[in-house]
């Protein structure tokens, strides 16, 4: 399941981070998401061929001992990071979830009262992300039940 979801700005500045498991060490997830930026750079900046249309879903960025980090990058270089406690059994589900998160992010930033580059404090966005995470968990659970 997704234990942490984060949105990182184009300047690698944190816009949103939320954990979905009870933890008292949120800084650890900050470090994990922060570290994933290096992997994003490796995948996007270093390995992209000239003229290649990049895939927004980056897949597995890197694994840690406990977690697996997946990424998604928008055309404006905003990164959506999902930290999973296991390898995703169906990456298409995860890609779909991240894409939905992307849509929610676009909706949140379309708010005229939102200052671009500022942390996302929208309650609607948080609820949307929680819904997406919950939907992914249910889909994975259903998949595993089969």
């Amino acid at each position, binding site marked *: 399941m997704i234990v942490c979801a984060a949105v990182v700005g184009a*300047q*690698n*500045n*944190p816009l949103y981070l939320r954990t979905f498991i009870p933890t008292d060490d949120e*800084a*650890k997830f*900050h*470090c*994990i998401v*922060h*570290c*994933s*930026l*290096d*992997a994003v750079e*490796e995948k996007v900046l*270093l*390995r992209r061929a000239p003229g290649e249309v990049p895939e927004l879903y980056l897949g597995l960025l*890197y694994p*840690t*001992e406990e977690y697996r980090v997946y990424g998604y990058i928008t055309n404006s270089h905003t990164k959506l990071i999902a930290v999973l406690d296991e390898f995703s059994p169906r990456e298409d589900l995860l890609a779909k979830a991240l894409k939905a998160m992307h849509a929610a992010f676009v909706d949140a930033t379309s708010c005229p009262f939102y200052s671009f580059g500022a942390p996302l404090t929208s309650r609607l966005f948080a609820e949307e992300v929680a819904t997406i995470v919950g939907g992914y968990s249910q889909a994975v659970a259903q998949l595993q039940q089969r």
Partner: protein
Amino acid sequence: MGSVTRTIDPGISIFSAAEIRVAFVQIGPVPRDVYEEYLDAFNRHRHVPLSNVRELHHETVKTPFGHTPWKSGALHLRFLPDDDARRRTRVADLHVQRTVLAVLGVVHCPLVEDLAAAHAEWGRVARSFPDALVARCVAFAPGDAHLAAAAHGMRDLVVFPAGAPSHLDQHVEAFMPEFCAALLAGTEGWVLNAGVASVRLNTHVDSAEFTGSLAAVQEGLQRLNTNEEELREKKRWGRLQKTKGDLALISGSPKDAADHYKSGLELSKIAGDTVWAAAALEGLAAARVADALAAAGGGGGSLKRSLALAANAAAAAAAATGAGSPVGSGGGAGGEAAAASPSARPGGGGGGDGASPAPPASPRAGAPPSPRPQSSATPSPSRSPVKGARGGGGGGGGGPLIGPALWEALAAAGVEEEVAELLVEARGWYRRKGGALPLQIENALKHARLLAGVRGARDSRAAGLALLGSALELVPQLTLLEDRLVALVEVAQVMGLLGCGRKRQLLLWAAVDLSRAVDRSDTLALRIATRALEPPDDARAQDPDDLPRRHWSQRRAAVPLFDPTRSPGAAWQSVQLAAAEAALAAARQANSPIEAWEAGALILREHCALLHPQYQQGLLDALAAAAARLPQRALLRRGPGPGPLAQLRRVTPPPPWLAPVHISAGGGSGKQGGGSGEGSAGPFIFNPYEEKRQKGAAAAAAESAVVEWVAGDQCRVEVALANPLALPLRLDAVALLVEHADGGDAAAAGGAGSGAPSPDRPPRQRASGEDGGGGGGGSAGGGGEPGAAAAAAAVSLSPVAVTLPAGGKPVRVVLPLTPLRPGELRITGVAVTAWGVTWRQPLTLLPRLAPLAAPGALRAQPPQPVRVLPRLPMLRATLSGPDVAVVQPPPDSEAGRSGGGAGGGGAGGAGGSAGGGAGAGGALGKAAAVQVFEGQHLAWSLALTNTGDQPVGFCTLAVLNPKGAPVRALPQGGAQLPASFAGVAVDAAAAEAALRAALPLPPRQSASLPLALVVGRPPADSFEEVAVELRITYAPLPADGAAVADAAGGDGAEAVGRRLSVPLRLVIHPTLAVTAVRFLALSVPLRDGRRFAPPGVNLRDAGLTRDGGLYRSTTSGRGSAAGGAGAGGMVRNSSEGALSASPLSPSALGALARQASLAASQQQHQARLERAEAQAAAQRQLWLEVEEQTRGDDAAAAAQPGAPAAAAASGSPTRRGQLAGAASASGAAAAAAGSSEAAALGSTLDSVVEAAVVNRSDRYFRTWLARLPGRPGAEGAESAVVVLEPGDTARLLAPMLPPDTAAPAAAAGAPPRRPPAVGAHGAPERMACAERLVEALGLRWEMITGDVAPDRLQRGLVRLAPVDAAHSLTPAAVSALCPSQLHVRIVALPPPAATGPGPELVDATAAAQALGVRLSGVVGQLWAVRLQVGQPLALEVRLTNAGEADEALRLSIAVADLTAGAGGAPGDGGAARPSQDTGGAGGGAAAAAAAAGAGGELVAGAAGFDGGDGGLLLTGASSRVPLAVPGAGGGAAHRLTALALRPGLYQLAVADVCSRGPQGAGGCAPLYVTQDRLCVLVV
């Protein structure tokens, strides 16, 4: 020796195989910082070229290394601190070079009394390293006792004499070749003596624990297939060859090593000894690299090239960081903290006790362990990047390559691919064994480091990350926690090399957690946590021992805050904050106050915006607690502290009198004078856009110009301090942080010289054992102290205390400092002291609008360069005089010039400092106001005192106006300023002469300069104020003894001096004004050509005062004073023909004196004559001091052929005569004339100047007309002395004597006046005559100011306006001013004897008035020859020619009846009548126009002027009488007779005169002739 602790070595690289490990152990007490200093000195020489070793290498037996590159090879040493040296690796049998092969014992003699005991202890320590080939005991800084003890021949004792750090460096440089030669001999002997029997086959590498079960299975299968004994033998031989290869490699012979490795590789492959085969492959790769480096490093230029590349890299890093620090490029494992970390490179310092659960020191080692864990040492700021990068540079000509040069050489050699293949193959052999995980990880780390170094971080990132990823997967499989920890940290470090700073941080985060399981004391966790706070290393400078040591806080501070491009991940503050908090927690648990201080300061400095105020308060309390526990030497921190943010606002310019100026040729200011001479680029003369552009360019140039200070002067710098915390911050001392070009900085000076709470730096010896903490150590490294001392000797600082409010509002603080010696300074920040700790805050550009915590809001401010000039003298000017007393610079400003005093106090605070700055600038533009009066002459004295300590060798004085132009100087040679001159004129010539005589002016000496000023009219456009600046520009004596003039006035030469300005504000008060000038005629009787001088009354006593006199001055009052010139009607411009006032009173003949009242109105144009009391008027006397005419009347008469003997005998010596015009009663004229004796009678007219003066001031003045130049007092008055009340008007009369005779200046040697310009016919121009008059006559005044000594009276001179004088100039005045060469005088001759009564010369004034004759412009009596009707009168016309040429004249004598025109306008004369010509009354000047033939000018206003009037008949030739007048003083005479026919008043004059040309050639040319007319009164 300690037990085996680890398998993986920190800092392992492809070069590690070629390094000789040397234990650097301390013997006896050695302070930690001193130990670091010694270690740093040895690290700077850890690469020793073989060329230096060869001379000392004694080849007792044939060397086993036949391919040693003696010219290009090198030995590479790795000095291990004792903690690390005592740690043994588990793979010592596999890699011989990982054992300690040499021991250096360090004895710090100042703390060791018994050198012999120390030597014995060293012996015990050396024996604890059984594998050591060489051991030496090095004693530093010995005393006499130590030297005496060393003389007894202690074995392997090396004594380094005490001296400067440079001396230590030289000693180490000289010691290293000998040491290496011994090492080389040891390795050679080992190789020669090594045998296969000593090779072990049951090492740790052969154990199942290391190789794993799969390897055991494979070995068993192989054993079944082959002969076991044969395999063992091959293994032994293979391992022996591998060991020999290792020894050959560390001995600097890579080719021999390669040979051995290849042999060993083959044998190991055959024997199935896979680990040794892989090790041989790795050794082969290392040998290949070493061979390539040896090939590239040959030649003398290699070291220089490597140094240059290292310097470039450091400079690029400094530019990237923007702080001028090479830290950004910092390679290696990062400073001393890295040395203390278990993850550090082998020589960088051991992990200390933290890396091993075993005790750090073996009891049998004898040497006590370090009392505290490895402390952090701060690098020397004086060590330049080049020097730092040179750390490993060996001496001698061809040194090994280090830093970027090393990697470039490898890339150029093209060995990367070959080496990579060998490493990959080796990794494959490791994998064959199935185990050997640590070796696989080491292999991957080596490979990744090689890729990063050769290809660079970006290009090697993908491949490197793949290697590291594989290595990272193996880490959890390591059996030893220590190996896991080291591997984790090493992978993290290499990831940092590849540019993955975030991954590095995450791995270090994980390592911190792991370290707590390894070391319960949390020291290890602290070291890794602080490592996580450092920026990543540079891929091109990986070796930390080749870099200067820096504390992690300094390395982190060198990276700009919140700049993601420079510090990846820095923008994610929560992550950084978490790392910093982890470090702080670890420091607290490890009981390290230094690291706790640094971590707490880091949190407050970078992340205060995220912290709650209570948390901030807690951090401040933690800082205070840590500061209280800091050791004495650690109180001076080299890095930044918790704040505040400091921005250099401006370097406060010194006061004008202290500012240095560049004096170019001619004494002008080279820097301040230029810039405005560019012409306009457009068609217009003035282009406002161009002007604006030039101003902007000038302002930009002024801003970019390097500030210049003078050594010994106190300077001020304005700094803005901002406290971003939510709590107020009290700073005990804030001082500037200044770096000197000689090295070092003045941070220590700031604390030391201030008396501030910051402690003085204790002596180096005191640091022993006081550096506490788990890894800190803020003391200066190697060259730091001398650098700081140099800076301290260059600058004296005066700290101030300040309390900064919360919220980030900048507070302006003025920080004073005094540069002490010339050179280049750089202001890099401020040194702040609080809680007893002094730290350094770099300069930061504070945002104007954004909050301080906004990302990207803060940027580093470049250091401010300042040029310090040599000491300069200091002059103090004292301007004193009766009216002024000015001292410049002000006496209170002298305190600001400290003269190099060590800024005491420092308790000024912000307000105090600001006040000081205001005080310094307060004197700017404040000019002393001096009250002066128009026309005043001032005599001041300017005293220049040299108050400095340098002699003044060059000095100029200039008097300037506010626009910078020189003030008009007084004319030289007695010339006068024009009457219209406004402002002030200064005579500085005498001052300059006195100044030149006084130079050079030594210290504490004075020179007094006279200064004369003349005050002109108040300027109409500046509110009667005139600003004058006395600018004194001076410079010291040239240091090289050159001529002073060359220093400042030579061609292109430029000297540095100072400029002292004495500003003055002169408030000019108006005094007197001459509203009108008129010329009057005074009839003077002549007898035999001599002036008749009756006993008279002094004209001055007659007093043309306002209460009486010939002309009564009408008091027009204050209100009408201004209009008195014209509206009063008394004085009117004669040019208007409106001199309506008759000067003569119409009193009865001889009855009363005249007292003219000129209270005429302008409308009536009529003078109202008043009759004064007879008695009083009778006493009116006119005194007129006249100069007897120099025309030599009598002499001319004597020279005239046929002249009367009496006339000839009378002579006429030039003398002054006095004429007393006694206003006698009727009939008194006869007595006055005294004509009873037979004599030639006549009269002449003198010209009198009448000046109307008005007092425009509100003061009382005493005034008179006086000759110029002359005595300023009233003694030389030419007129009456009158006293004028405010607003009063007076008329002053003064005789107008010929200037040639009257001017005493001519006798005083003054240059002669220029002759007046002449117009047509030789007649002088009126303007020229007027100018001559005003040069000789002026209005002097004295102010009546009560009881004042005569010498202190305020006196002045008001000039007459030549234009006004020229307007009213009469022919008589012209004649008086410019006598002609030809003069005609008509005299009445006495009748022949006994023929009857002779003519009498009488006062005909009353008669003329009775007859209604208006005699305008005549003053005094009118003298005339009295005849009876029917009485004949013998006349003689006498001519004198003072010219050079003879003249042939033709003249006509005419008679004018003066009463003829009286009937037309009896009484008043009529303004319309041309009676204003005083010549009509028989004046002196006759400008004859012969062609006109008329005597209009002569008798204008007189009717019937022809050869004979009806009342007076001329007999004899009177018309066109030819006369020849010889030149050169010759004369001629013509006689005729007049017969009186009718009573009346007549005048005889030359009516026409013309020149007939030479010898009477004919024609008639006009001539300029003056004449004395004769009046005849027929009764």
